[in-house]
């Protein structure tokens, strides 16, 4: 009985979507996704610039420390 009830329920006709409303819904969702995508791209671009910049500054600092150490120890 329970199996046949489940089958009967599963066989009920599905609800008919309203095409116009469905299109509007899809458009709104696409707009939200487009905003996410542009933010994602912006973040990637910033990361691409940020990482070499930090590495460069770090390198300069290390060079400055070495030069200072050499000066203090009388090599220069």
């Amino acid at each position, binding site marked *: 009985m329970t199996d046949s009830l489940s089958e009967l329920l599963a066989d009920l006709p*599905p609800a008919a979507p309203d095409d116009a409303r469905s299109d509007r819904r899809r458009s709104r*969702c696409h707009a939200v996704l487009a905003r996410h995508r542009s933010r994602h791209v912006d973040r990637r671009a910033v990361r691409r610039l940020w990482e070499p910049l930090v590495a460069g500054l770090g390198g300069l600092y290390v060079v400055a420390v070495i030069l200072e150490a050499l000066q203090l120890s009388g090599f220069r």
Partner: protein
Amino acid sequence: MSQFVCSSVPNAVDRETELALVGRLREGDATAFDAIYEAFNVRLLTFLVRLSRRRDVAEDLLDETWLRLVKHAPRLAEDTRIGAWLFTVARNLHVSYVRSRMFEDSASAGLMALWPFSPASGGSSPFEAAAASELHRRIEHALATLPRMSREVLLLVAVGGLDHGAAAAVSGISPEAFRQRLSRARAQLARALDQDCRSGAVRLSEVTP
């Protein structure tokens, strides 16, 4: 406009495809969204229409469900089960709606008699089509008379196509509690169908000599 169509619901996606779609959706891919939408929109709408028993409410909740998915897309876990996720959101939105509007199960049961149901199509004869339509009408009516939680568990399994574990998680209860609730709901549905059948027989005896 009729509430229901007699077409098949698109199949849910397999796990491998689902994972790929979730990955692309996290990056904001609209085609991945469209694929998920095609796979689940009719199921979600059917679930919400039968759960809320109101087309306008179901459409509003469906809008909100899809919007929540896209707003939440970048934060989705890689292994998200998208079907269960969507049904959880839809179900929770309906619970919130019921709470906010103090929508009583019993209040609208009488409205079911006013609902238009589409005639069955694809039957091999007009008689079979009419019989299927009558059967569908009786099941719809019996389903509408059940308490919300009973309708919910039946619909999650039958319309949502979720396994018991996933459906239990959607309902926020343990699998064992879900099995008990489902069993109770099936018994209630069987009783409601039986009563509908008997009242139909009484109506028939009133008009036949």
